[in-house]
């Protein structure tokens, strides 16, 4: 893996992000409407060539995580961030699906954390609609739980020790052991640690209120600035929005007209915003999304209390 850090922007003086935070990645939001199906692969490849640094996949019917996974082998550099609900899902499944996306995209996966407010969604899983405060508390709990699952295998847990016949070393695994208000979860993950270890978790402006301040401002890795381009994309206005936005990791074009000339629009916007040093350069190969977003590497954090070979330890102690 590359160890180079993001190059500072040529004229960093005017931009709002702090000195250590690289320029935000330019993302395009695709709503996963089934009408997209036949052109999906071509569209993603085209957007990648046009200079998009990432795609966010918002739920329009097709499951956003699976659409992101589908696009992973069909693209090579795009970051892939499903915008998907934290509340009316099983945290264990969610964690597994997202870390699987990270495996098969070789470290290009992220999560745009959403907290569902549409009452149809809890009804579909047989749950009551949560109030705003309860939703925010649960979003925080789910993010904490999901990260604990992601962090349950050391990167070198699969030892494949042919001499001893040991495939995985239990001492390099740990339980998640989450006891939250509305759920509990034991772990460890059923999937080995993914390339990024911890996926970048961002909150889009659209979702900030529902997700709650604690998750958006403290627990998540950063903010995605939403730029609505459904009424047309005027560079000067968009540039002004980015400049006044404060620190953001992702600049996200929402409402792109897919009927008109989406690739042309994105190519033109990417070039214009890059020439003003407002968004990061086009992605370079083999960099994880974390790196591109300016997030530090996420080393395994072993926690002695959660070691999964503790039964053995206890046995040894009591022997």
């Amino acid at each position, binding site marked *: 893996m590359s160890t180079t850090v993001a190059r500072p922007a040529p004229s960093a003086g005017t931009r709002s992000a702090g000195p250590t935070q690289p320029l935000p990645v330019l993302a395009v939001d695709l709503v996963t409407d089934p009408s997209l199906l036949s052109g999906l692969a071509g569209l993603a490849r085209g957007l990648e060539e046009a200079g998009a640094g990432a795609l966010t996949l918002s739920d329009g019917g097709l499951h956003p995580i*699976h659409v992101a996974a589908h696009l992973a082998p069909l693209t090579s550099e795009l970051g892939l961030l499903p915008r998907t609900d934290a509340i009316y899902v099983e945290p264990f499944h969610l964690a597994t699906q997202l870390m699987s996306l990270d495996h098969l995209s070789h470290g290009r996966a992220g999560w745009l954390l959403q907290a569902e407010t549409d009452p149809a969604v809890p009804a579909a899983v047989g749950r009551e609609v949560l109030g705003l405060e309860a939703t925010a508390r649960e979003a925080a709990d789910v993010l904490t739980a999901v990260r604990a699952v992601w962090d349950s295998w050391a990167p070198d847990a699969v030892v494949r020790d042919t001499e001893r016949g040991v495939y995985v070393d239990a001492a390099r695994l740990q339980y998640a052991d989450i006891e939250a208000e509305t759920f509990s979860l034991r772990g460890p993950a059923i999937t080995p640690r993914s390339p990024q270890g911890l996926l970048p978790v961002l909150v889009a402006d659209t979702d900030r209120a529902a997700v709650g301040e604690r998750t958006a401002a403290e627990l998540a890795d950063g903010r995605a600035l939403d730029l609505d381009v459904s009424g047309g994309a005027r560079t000067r206005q968009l540039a002004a929005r980015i400049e006044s936005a404060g620190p953001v990791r992702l600049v996200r074009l929402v409402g792109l007209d897919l009927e008109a000339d989406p690739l042309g629009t994105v190519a033109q916007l990417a070039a214009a915003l890059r020439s003003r040093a407002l968004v990061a350069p086009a992605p370079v190969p083999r960099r994880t999304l974390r790196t591109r977003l300016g997030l530090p590497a996420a080393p395994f954090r072993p926690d002695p209390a959660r070691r999964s070979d503790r039964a053995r330890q206890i046995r040894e102690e009591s022997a």
Partner: protein
Amino acid sequence: MTTAHTQAPLSPEAAALATGPAAHPLHPAHAPTGQLAFGVFFQGVNSSTIWRLPASGDQVAWESFEALARTAERGRFAAFFLGEGLRLREHRGVPFELDVAGRPDAQTLLAALAGVTERIGLVATQNTTFNDPVDLARRLQTLDLLSGGRAGWNVVTTDNAWTGENFRRGGYLDHADRYVHAEAFVRVAEQFWRGEQIAHDGAHYAVRAHGDLPASAQGRPVLFQAGASPAGQDFAARTADVVFSPHGTLEAAVDFRRGIVERTLAAGRDPGSVKILPGAEIILAATEAEAAEKVRWVRDQQIGPEQALALLEQYWGRDLSAFDPDGPLPDVPPEVVESGVTRGAGFQFADAEQLTRTWREEAAEKGQSILEFARARAGARRGTFTGSYDTVADRLVEFARLGAIDGLNITPWLIPSGLDDIVDELVPRLQERGVYPAEYAGSTLRENLGLPVG
């Protein structure tokens, strides 16, 4: 379509098992197609994939899945299956260290494979106890749409509270309710796929939703069922398109087919509407002698001294590390009677007392050590087709002609190259013998399994 089953007399073994009229050797209501379809079962977590060899690849890397799926497609396999286990296997309170462990989420992976394959079916094993039906139905339909009608769902059930510790509802199902719940679950999914209004009030939860995705090219995902209990077979007969169960011998396969035909008729369905694809391990070589040698070598690689002791510990429920793997089976009684100490899919033992006594006697009679016993058992447990390319091809022709099975779900003992000899040597021989398709029948999984379309 070739009709190989009418061309030549059956072998004495097969003839002895065939009791129906000649055209319908097993059951008057069942007309064998004489054709076989292959699937490949990438198990992930398991004890039969050899990971110690230099040729063994990464069991989680995208490249391994892609390579295996491409080989299977080259061999005109109908389906690519992924297994599922929702809690990391444990052995005596610690994650099990000796076998392949860890795998990606099945559907997430299959959604990616849908983009790099064209014809092969993509089947996800997914549990009905620890999923929500509308969520799962939406994900499966997404896969079906992304793949152009190639999705399948291997419906499995589990009730154990141990797995439930990873889920909101916990372990809330009684064992007897597994299939009752599974059936209600599948009905909700079917309503979703048909775009209907769903108002389900079950014993465990109420669901209100509306199917809002278009139908795929095959209408809905193909339903597989894996589980051999009578309740499981009834569930399959009422609900599934394909049964995927373990039985290695021709006799066992014939019995199973008769049972499924009877249950399918009792459920008011055409017996041809439920296909049978048992799981199988295939070990091949150019000659019989080489194949026999290779089987021994594969078993040695699969089961070392550590694995042999761990296998017995599952049933004895206690630490057996003091016993010599080259010595006789432990002469101590088991500690756990109700369930094994290894926790994970498929490990549930009723009477350890009785079982361990039988095994001790059996091994003593045959003069087997712990290691020899474990290796022999590993072979016997699986549906195993071993031998020269031609012998195995001829044997499979017999299964096909008799109508005992509709194909095999092949578990490779090596990842990712474990299908190479099957695709290069066995498939062409089956094609020459007229029991295996030269080309894909269509673009959907349903078509390629010979299931009724529409």
